[in-house]
């Protein structure tokens, strides 16, 4: 197997694992976003989910830099994810800025260093529940193989969110969505608490919590709660490597 195939195999095994044992949806979505950057030719990735009020919300990101998170958030006004959500179709822009598409979003993306963008829909039957958002520094687009891979990763995320339960999909989806999104808010609050206490940046704060969660086999959201409650501090989480 070549490098990418190994990466992909590892990814799918990891993802399948989360479905079997105790399931941490926040960790799953984060892994998914990170894997996109590792297995296809993109420089940043984010998973956006639509909440029950139609707002696109970040559920997972390949990096926790505020600037990147904002690039996802502003697409509630305009951008590839909004178009993708509305049409249910993949949206590609090979040359941001030059094309004149989404003027405000494009300006911010280019200022952040990205010159190409794609949005792959996450679909459940007739519903578009979110989008996989990919950014590239180099202009251009993913080739067909890479596109298929991204579609597959997006599909796995959708399936993972639904799980197998004997209740209606609408109910489960609402509950899982809300859990993922409210967990994200808790994690953002904890990032702030930890960043202030430990005098580290938001990225580093996230990595400290994530490292602890994986090491102790706990959910990210639980670790975040621990940080907020004052039970987990620098002593327990360690320092950035």
């Amino acid at each position, binding site marked *: 197997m070549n490098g990418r195939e190994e990466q992909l195999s590892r990814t799918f095994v990891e993802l399948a694992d989360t479905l079997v044992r105790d399931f941490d949806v926040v960790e799953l979505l984060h892994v998914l976003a990170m894997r996109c950057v590792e297995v296809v030719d993109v420089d940043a990735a984010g998973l956006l989910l639509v909440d029950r009020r139609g707002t696109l919300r*970040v559920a997972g990101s390949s990096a926790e830099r505020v600037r990147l998170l904002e690039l996802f*958030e502003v697409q509630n006004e305009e951008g590839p994810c909004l178009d993708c959500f509305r049409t249910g179709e993949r949206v590609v822009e090979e040359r941001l800025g030059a094309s004149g598409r989404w003027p405000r979003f494009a300006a911010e993306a280019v200022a952040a260093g990205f010159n190409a963008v794609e949005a792959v829909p996450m679909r459940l039957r007739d519903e578009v529940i979110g989008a996989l958002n990919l950014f590239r520094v180099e202009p251009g687009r993913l080739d067909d193989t890479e596109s298929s891979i991204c579609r597959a990763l997006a599909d796995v995320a959708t399936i993972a969110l639904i799980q197998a339960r004997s209740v209606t999909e609408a109910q489960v989806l609402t509950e899982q969505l809300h*859990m993922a999104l409210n967990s994200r808010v808790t994690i953002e609050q904890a990032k702030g608490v930890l960043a202030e206490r430990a005098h580290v940046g938001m990225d580093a704060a996230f990595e400290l919590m994530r490292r602890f969660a994986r090491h102790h086999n706990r959910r990210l959201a639980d670790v975040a709660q621990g940080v907020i409650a004052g039970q987990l501090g620098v002593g327990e989480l360690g320092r950035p490597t």
Partner: protein
Amino acid sequence: MEVERNARLVAAIDEGRSDRPFHARLCDRAVEGLGVSGAALILMSDGETGAVAAASGAGITTIEDLQFAIGEGPCLEAYRTGVPVLEPDLQAAGASRWPMFAAAAVEAGAEAVFALPMAVGAIRCGVLYLYRNRPGMLSAEQLADGLALADIGTTILLDLHSTAVAAIVGDTVDGVWHHRAVVHQATGMASVQLECSLAEALARLRALAYSSERSMYDVAVDVVAGLVRFEP
């Protein structure tokens, strides 16, 4: 879009009975607009007990009381998990979810129950609790409205000491900040700087936004950048 939905709901609540306070009218709005038989705004702080801040519709307090007396039920679950708890058919599915609560609730007239958490991440205020006297799931639109009402309820509860409801309402409508990561990060930072709870930190952030006539988002950006610090 979220802003329009919130604006529409707040306008409808404003037009409610003037003899009732805002949060009571919010419950009235839930009953009128969501096709439910009763609604209650329940304050919770420890996950064990709840206080009804406002209610609308028949029998709601009985059914809600049951949960806290029994120690199980949709409100407790929603509060603890921070996740909406939706049960459209208590008779069919309730027994496996909440054995004691389901039986008592059905007898009291609740066939469907929906508990929408009032929370901002780790800030847990309570639950907006809805019930129906016939089984049936909320429609997508009703659910969206219900969640928006829970959000509005959260905003109100976090600002109980605030004088102007209009100001709170204005923030809810204009400042759609719930999905901006930087606001939640700033809340965390401020809570450490002020040595207070996240809820208080959020209120302080909001107060600073009002007094300086800036959006919550802009203030939050400054806090995270270290340009604004809070002193206890």
